[in-house]
């Protein structure tokens, strides 16, 4: 996707993660999210990290793995109507740079949350569940798979 000029993609959802500066922007947004969590009163640093990781994974799950189709009218007569945003990235190419980046971010957040929560078992359970909820749908074998037909249409 080009910056500052009109894009020429039939479906911009496939390419926006290749735009210039989007990875940096992504990291900055996550850092801001973390500072917002840190600034909440009565929360310890560990709690703030778990909250950051939870919120990040929740938003990621909804935006990438739950929402289907495109928010705009595409010129391909709705080819990706029933594909999640994750499945549309790079037109379905597995292990592309954007996909690798999006896989690593929640893992790094998990490490940080584990570290700052002093490897507390309760935090471990919460963080692991939220991590797996965004990691498993990213596996190539789950591409286009709808278990029990949930979220199929």
């Amino acid at each position: 996707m080009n910056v500052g000029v009109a894009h020429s993609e039939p479906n911009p959802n496939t390419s926006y993660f290749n735009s210039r500066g989007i990875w940096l922007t992504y990291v900055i947004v996550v850092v801001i999210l973390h500072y917002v969590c840190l600034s909440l009163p009565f929360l310890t640093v560990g709690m703030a990290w778990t909250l950051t990781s939870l919120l990040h994974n929740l938003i990621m799950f909804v935006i990438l793995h739950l929402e289907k189709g495109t928010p705009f009218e595409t010129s391909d007569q709705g080819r990706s109507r029933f594909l999640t945003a994750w499945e549309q990235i790079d037109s379905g190419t597995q292990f592309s740079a954007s996909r690798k980046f999006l896989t690593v971010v929640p893992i790094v957040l998990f490490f940080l949350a584990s570290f700052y929560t002093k490897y507390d078992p309760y935090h471990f359970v919460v963080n692991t569940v939220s991590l797996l909820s965004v990691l498993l749908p990213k596996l190539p074998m789950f591409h286009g798979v709808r278990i029990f037909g949930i979220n199929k249409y």
Partner: protein
Amino acid sequence: MFNFLHMCGLAAEATLSTTASWDLYETIQALFQAPSYHLVFEAALILWIVGLLFTKSYSSKVNKLTLTDKEKADLVEEWQPEPLVPNVPEDDPELINIRTRIVDSKLGKYVTLNGQKCLNMASLNFLAMVGKEVIEEEAVKSLKKYGVGACGPRGFYGTVDVHLEEEEKLAQFMGTEEAIVYSYGFATIASAIPAYSKRGDIIFCDEGVCFAIQKGIQASRSKVKMFRHNDTADLERLLTLHAEEERKDVKKARVTRKFLIVEGLYVNYGDICPLPKLMELKWKYKLRLFMDESISFGTLGKTGRGVTEHFNVPIDDVDFISASLENALGSFGGFGCGKSYVIDHQRLSGLGYCFSASTPPMLSQAAIVALDLLKNTPDMVDRLHANSAYLHEKLSRVPGLRVVGDTVSPVLHLQLAESDRKRASAMATLRCIVQMAEEEGVALVVASYLEKDERHLPPPSIRLAVNCDLDEKEMDRVVEVIDHACLASSNS
């Protein structure tokens, strides 16, 4: 190691003397007391990241076709280049038509065809708007005021006040909330259908629809189910079959839009769609009804408002109506009308609206004047109905020919009475009739189709267009000429 970190922590505490650094020290200490399951899990994640770094990307298309070198060579060997221009034989009748039937006058009631004055029964000029002086004068005035046109699409410096006036007047005339004007009649319905019907949707369509609708449903990429021409029983059969499928997969049905696409008056058959029955099915099976009124607009109903007026059906019950301004109004372009909620969608999604230069203002002006004429002189429509019925009645008595279409329809199709003839031979006979009629001063035309591209090729016929200005003498002459030509061609 442990002592070193401890020292670091103490040093940090000493220099910064903040609680944060003390927390950090304690946290780092926790790392060394971390439970083993946690460390194992983290190690696995690290391994995964390392693995990711070394994984090559690949396309996820499952059924990727892989060809061996031999198969590739075979395919290359087999390939035959197609000519850029198809090889049409020099004696192809359509080619001869283009080269030898030349008009050098306005396509009014009379035309000069190959230098001979002929009564024009071929142009779809139902209300005799072509060549009307009032319209021409207004169009020239508009040309002097606005120039030829903006050469820009409506949304991009192409809109002139005349376009807005045209849309308003059309909406007012049809009695709908809003109308949208396209610059090309064919593109109107061909753009409107794919603007709403997408992949995964389903279209129920009459087999007899015109080429523009066929292109529209093709561009929509939807699933298409064709029912037999004007056969509501066949449509209902398809609908009940589909309803059963829906019951099996309710979730899918909930996101599938269903369309029913018909023509008001079929240009290829000259008959009217059974609208009341279609409305019944529309409500029963929850369909979105699109109707193309390219022929019926200006010709059907008491005041020319089309099929809805003809059957006395409230126009708001039809979801979308499109019509060409190129037939009854004798101008250029087309329009769609319906609820604002429906029409407005096309202003950003109708490809023919978004990406095509707007109509030259003078042609819009011509359409406005023609529409005013139609509104102020409704007897034009009455005369057209009378003429259609008269011609229909007279022509049906001509031996050797069969008149197809409703008596009220201004488009008549004359087919050969013997229906078992081969297409080529029937076409040859019809062309012969047309040729003889031309010599007698009546311009006719054989209905021509892109035979390879039509979904359901209509039978060969002569397409006759009725004009409201024809008088009985002229019509009798037409019938007489056709009668003679028919007799002569059957004898030869």
